[in-house]
């Protein structure tokens, strides 16, 4: 992840930018509202107010970083409307920044003094943001002042244009809303006469996202859609292209053709290729490919992968990987649907009281057996508890693989019993297997066990006890531990607490901030490598809606993490939504509101969310966790 440091901007010492005669930020509203052409930066709409040259250059630089999808409407600067633009923020000098941060504890004072400044100066906006985030306490009242002068122009302008703009899809990649579910359907198989080959190939080509894994020797290993036969010609082309660049000692990492982005990651003897017609950045796609590679390692371990190819470079890896294809596919599908966990490289936890979590931790520790390495309680992909040895931490990427296996792929759950699974956690140790005991808690009401309506608990609702050991013979030991642990939890009411927390689901934004304009948010706690978010329901329940939401987040995330930018606050308005990102050394907040949301309300809600998270921090996140 290219998480650019939040320190002072590169050009901070440039005397010219130190106190730039920035135009009132409200004027920048006009820039994108006319930018319905989202074609390219060259076609940027005219009514840009005059800006200092240096800023202009910066602006161009920032924009071109994100134009890696020529032809696609991803150019943020040209599309976004009310950006507290890169330029506005990347221009405070280093001395000021550090002083401000030092004064963090005296927030009120600092903020008060800033309020006297004319906040029409973009640089101050950036500073204020950083003060607020480093300060221990949020003060909502101030936000109004920070963004205050935008308010007047904001709503009116956007409303005026929004009626005309709504006819355009948010992102070209997402425009065929109803079609998206077909993304996950099989392409079908070529029958024996090959009569339907064209149809199958057309289905294949219609997919907006492809993942291909091939060996360096050019053997297809896995493809998300279709089979080896169908795609063999494409594999050949890809291999030729990759090896051409390899020969010239300049490995190809990505390229774009039309609206399609190709990203290649080479790991040892494997090439992993992502082909996407959706709104995703190179970095994001690379992360996804790396996760797929981790999944392969998790199945095979690194030494055995290396060994296989060192004996025979033309090894067909399909056979050793047999049976794990579904894991790759569910992983790929969760990326395609949009995975906040992957985007943020963080984990989500189940929100319960600190004392309740403590009670479960203690129960886990009390029932711990000697062969236990990690003990986890997981509710539908959300971590409830974790106990671990002092020396070892858990890698979020590893947990993501485990959660994918346990909750997304049906294999473990459909087994109907307890599972004993050899698994390599590459983040922990890529050279060997650990053994994982998995058992699902039965959370159905005990009152009517005869009620055999097969109320299949959804992924979100299933709760698993995961006990990991390095000893492959320790199944019965861990089974005993599980029984004791569950019995204790029944006794001390922990099961009930988990059950209620799961049933409650994620809070909606209006639960947190009554009457807020926000429809959804993601909050990542950087220190804890964990995130929390609001409920997808009701607005983002469908797969395609959720995909649009994730595209918006991808977009925000890419722009705020673009190399060489030091953005702290990023506000972006399109015809169907306005979105807002706020990054500090402590957290990353991404939120989405309706297109007409005014910026003041947005900022106010955002800081209320921050305040809420701060209050609930020990419930939302596992801080420290239990060690033994």
């Amino acid at each position, binding site marked *: 992840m290219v998480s650019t440091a939040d320190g002072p901007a590169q050009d901070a010492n440039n005397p010219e930018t130190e106190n730039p005669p920035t135009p009132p930020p409200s004027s920048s509203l006009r820039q994108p509202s006319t930018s319905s052409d989202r074609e390219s930066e060259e076609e940027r709409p005219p009514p840009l107010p005059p800006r200092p040259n240096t800023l202009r250059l910066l602006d161009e630089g920032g924009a071109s970083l994100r134009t890696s999808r020529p032809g696609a409407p991803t150019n943020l600067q040209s599309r976004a409307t009310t950006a507290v633009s890169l330029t506005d923020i990347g221009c405070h000098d280093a001395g000021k920044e550090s002083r401000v941060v030092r004064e963090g504890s005296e927030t009120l004072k600092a903020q008060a003094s800033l309020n006297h400044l004319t906040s029409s100066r973009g640089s101050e906006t950036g500073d204020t943001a950083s003060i607020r985030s480093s300060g221990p306490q949020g003060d909502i009242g101030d936000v109004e002042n920070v963004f205050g002068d935008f308010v007047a122009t904001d709503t009116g302008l956007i409303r005026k244009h929004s009626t005309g703009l709504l006819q355009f899809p948010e992102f070209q990649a997402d425009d065929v809303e109803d079609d998206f579910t077909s993304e996950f359907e099989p392409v*079908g*198989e070529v029958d024996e006469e090959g009569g339907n080959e064209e149809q199958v190939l057309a289905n294949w080509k219609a997919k907006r996202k492809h993942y291909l894994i091939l060996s360096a020797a050019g053997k297809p290993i896995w493809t998300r859609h279709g089979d080896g036969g169908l795609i063999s010609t494409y594999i050949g082309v890809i291999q030729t292209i990759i090896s051409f660049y390899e020969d010239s000692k300049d490995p190809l990492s990505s390229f774009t053709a039309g609206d399609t982005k190709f990203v290649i990651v080479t790991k040892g003897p494997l090439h992993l290729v992502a082909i996407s017609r959706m709104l995703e950045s190179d970095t994001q796609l690379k992360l996804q490919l790396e996760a797929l590679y981790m999944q392969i390692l998790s199945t095979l371990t690194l030494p055995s992968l290396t060994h296989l190819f060192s004996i025979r470079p033309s090894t067909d890896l399909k056979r050793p990987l*047999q049976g794990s294809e*579904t894991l790759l596919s569910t992983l790929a599908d969760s990326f395609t649907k949009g995975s906040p966990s992957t985007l943020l490289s963080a984990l989500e936890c189940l929100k319960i009281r600190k004392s309740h979590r403590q009670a479960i931790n203690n129960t886990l520790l009390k029932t711990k057996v000697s062969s236990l390495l990690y003990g986890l309680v997981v509710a539908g992909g959300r971590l409830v508890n974790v106990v671990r040895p002092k020396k070892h931490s858990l890698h979020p990427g590893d947990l993501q693989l485990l959660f994918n296996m346990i909750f997304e792929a049906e294999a473990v759950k459909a087994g*109907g019993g307890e*599972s*004993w699974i050899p698994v390599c956690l590459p983040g922990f140790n890529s050279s060997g297997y650990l053994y994982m005991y998995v058992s699902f808690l039965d959370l159905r009401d005990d009152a009517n066990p005869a009620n055999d309506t097969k109320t299949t608990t959804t992924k979100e609702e299933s709760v698993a006890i995961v006990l990991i050991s390095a000893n492959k013979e320790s199944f019965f030991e861990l089974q005993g531990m599980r029984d004791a642990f569950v019995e204790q939890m029944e006794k001390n009411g922990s099961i009930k607490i988990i059950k209620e927390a799961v049933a409650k689901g994620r809070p909606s934004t209006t639960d947190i901030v009554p009457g807020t304009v926000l429809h959804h948010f993601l909050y990542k706690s950087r220190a804890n490598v964990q995130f929390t978010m609001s409920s997808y329901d009701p607005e983002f329940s469908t797969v395609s809606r959720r995909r649009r939401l994730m595209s918006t987040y991808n977009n925000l995330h890419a722009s705020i993490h673009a190399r060489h930018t030091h953005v702290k606050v990023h506000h972006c308005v399109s015809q169907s939504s306005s979105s807002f990102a706020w990054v500090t050394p402590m957290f990353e907040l991404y939120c989405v509101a309706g297109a007409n949301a005014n910026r003041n309300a947005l900022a106010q809600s955002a800081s209320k969310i921050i305040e809420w998270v701060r209050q609930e921090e020990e419930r939302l996140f596992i801080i420290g966790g239990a060690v033994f």
Partner: protein
Amino acid sequence: MSESTSANTAKPSSSVKLVLLGEAAVGKSSLVLRFVNNDFQENKEPTIGAAFLTQKCSLPTRTIKFEIWDTAGQERFASLAPMYYRNAQAALVVYDVTKPSSLTKAKHWVAELQRQASPGIVIALVGNKLDLTNDANEAAGEAQPEAEHESSPADGDEATEETQEEPDVSNGDARKVPTREASAYAEEEGLLFFETSAKTGHNVVDVFTAIANAIPESSLKSGRGAGAGTGQTSLSGGRPAEDSRVNLGERGAATAKEGCAC
């Protein structure tokens, strides 16, 4: 998991460790799920590692608690198999009646079990997916058919095989392994033999009942099962269970009347 011991306290209860082995996608997990939950899932995803399940089986004189290891059929898990069959008193070696290569693989497993597993292990050879053959019609009605969608999308191993095999046969009979061939082999090796359909439930309970009956009384002691502790690792000695093995090649000859109360 299974219900607690309360109902059959009168009868002596004992545990039997049972392991399922066989090529990938022959329907091992489906057999177990039919036996344990009386459930069937079309296009079930392959098992990862192994699953451990329990189910009770009530015989006239005693209650047997099966502790079942349902192993993954993929080759990369093969090296873990000894861990599961080492102390097992019974093994179910499964093949797919529509796939000859799976019988070959089953024979390998039988040989390995005879060589390495506890002496006296009761082995049942089971040909699954009988519903894909013509014999399926006769078997219909015997079980509780779940909602069945024959024309489900060709996604997943089982369905893939169906579509691949079907063109070869005119009358919809996808059978590739004759009953006679498999039963002759089973008789030769002293195995129990059944043809089943996890999908319709045909013969599934019968397999487990027959195994329960075939386990010699002597090896049923503690609740944890005779093989639970150490011991039984000696590879010498004959097969005490030999004479208690029954050839049940003929369909319907199974001891169905003693069926499990589960």
